[in-house]
């Protein structure tokens, strides 16, 4: 494998995980900042920005500074990768990937959008991940991909149940771990990945697939408005703040 100089777009825990994973594999990671810098030496661009307007601005800005050959990997969490590619002048080098649990999953979901017509571009894109130890699983271009879509909907249902007072957060997590063998309870898992991440996947599906089934639970919306994103912000479904109450009070 040849180490790359990677320009990483995005901030927050998700991009930290991506940066960490790349650095561990010997790549050099350069973070994107608003101040005008010269990124022309980067040979790969990876983007994990959630906000649609910001990602469009960042990608357009970066594209002016890199050659048209540089591959761009974008998150497939919240939009069609074909749409993200459409914002660029050279969309044929854009492919999608699934950034959640990048450090722990052997498998990586990847997307070949319609604009990536050349087989060679696609092989190069998948090779990038394979060389870094990932078993790639090609999925069709659809917001939420596979794992985030399923997990976000499980978390959403758990949030509806919690909001309706069906059971406590702790009991819901116990139920799913011991009644049906989930590796983690959905609410503790959401706290780790981030409620802001979970809700953006739901919103992406709600907007792009247009189905009522993807409507985010009211409780999930309120928690994210209140910036209770989970572990990253100290509070989510559980509290991770200085323990005054034993072991993390449930919502």
């Amino acid at each position, binding site marked *: 494998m040849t180490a790359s100089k990677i320009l990483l777009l995005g901030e927050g825990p998700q991009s930290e995980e991506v940066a960490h994973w790349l650095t561990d594999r010997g790549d050099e990671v350069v973070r994107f900042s608003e101040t005008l810098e010269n990124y022309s030496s980067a040979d790969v661009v990876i983007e994990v920005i959630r906000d649609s307007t910001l990602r469009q601005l960042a990608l357009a800005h970066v594209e002016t500074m890199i050659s048209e050959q540089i591959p761009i990997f974008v998150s497939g969490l919240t939009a069609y990768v074909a749409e993200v590619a459409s914002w660029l002048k050279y969309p044929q080098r854009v492919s999608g990937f699934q950034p959640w649990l990048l450090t722990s999953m052997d498998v990586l979901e990847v997307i070949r959008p319609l604009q990536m017509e050349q087989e060679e571009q696609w092989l190069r894109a998948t090779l990038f991940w394979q060389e870094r130890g990932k078993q790639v699983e090609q999925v069709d271009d*659809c917001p939420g*991909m596979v794992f985030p879509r*399923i997990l976000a*909907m499980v978390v959403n249902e758990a949030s509806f149940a919690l909001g309706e007072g069906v*059971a406590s957060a702790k009991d*819901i997590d116990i139920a799913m771990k011991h009644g049906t063998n989930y590796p983690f309870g959905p609410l503790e898992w959401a706290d780790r990945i981030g409620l802001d991440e979970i809700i953006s996947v739901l919103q992406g599906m709600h907007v792009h697939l247009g189905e009522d089934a993807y409507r985010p639970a009211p409780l999930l919306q309120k928690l994210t408005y209140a910036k209770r994103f989970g572990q990253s912000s100290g509070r989510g479904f559980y509290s991770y703040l200085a323990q005054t109450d034993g072991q993390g009070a449930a919502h």
Partner: protein
Amino acid sequence: MEKAIIAVVGGGTMGNGIAEVFAVAGHSVYLYDVALEIREKALFDITDRLRRKSGRGKLSEPVEVILQRIRTVDTLDELHQAELVIEAVVERMDVKQQIFSVLDQICSQTAILATNTSSLSITETASVTKHPERVVGMHFFNPAPVMRLVEVVAGQFTEAFVVEKVVQIASEVGKLAIRVTDTPGFVVNRVARPFYLEALRIAGSQVASVQAIDRIIKSTGFKMGPFELQDLIGIDVNYAVTASVYESYFQESRFRPHGLQRSMVQSGNIGKKTGRGYYSYDRQ
């Protein structure tokens, strides 16, 4: 403190598993079912499982001692001494209500009447009794001796101390008890729906294959993917649960069953038990 006398009504898959759980924990258990063969089969199944456990050194007492605690009876009347009755008969409201109206009359005022129903309303079951405050859901998972979770379900009129008592008894026999309100699917069968349904929608819209979805999901820490799990549970059973939750929530779109499930059921390939479902299995 004396261990509560338990009665189990229905000696099928769940009933005989539940009887085993309590006998192993030292409770006297009365086990009732309608026919002699069924009662004998229940005892046979329990004995078989206990022998195997004993062989693996998993029991602290001889099998015979545990078995002596279980008494099969051929009338409901003989359950009158029980302090906790757990009903695990067929999933039919009329049958359950019939049983609860009898139990309400023959059992002591202080006895707790529990149902192991997966999908029926506790409140509706309790409505035929004079004392709905002592009727509660006690939802074990299959296989009952193995799965640790018990959902303790409070109906509209269930007294809080009844719920707490059942939580306590369940904990004492080694279960993890959670408190749940009387809503369709309770927690597990409701929150698990999207695990299957989203996977079906993803496969149905050709976003990823059944095999790819299972590989991806297992890579996140699940022991089985959504399709392997449906094959194990039975695609028919999984489909029936989905349809029941969907109807119970007045056709809420999140729970809408998927055409792929129905088509699998129609084909007769409903999983491991038929040798074929989403995957093919060798049938010995």
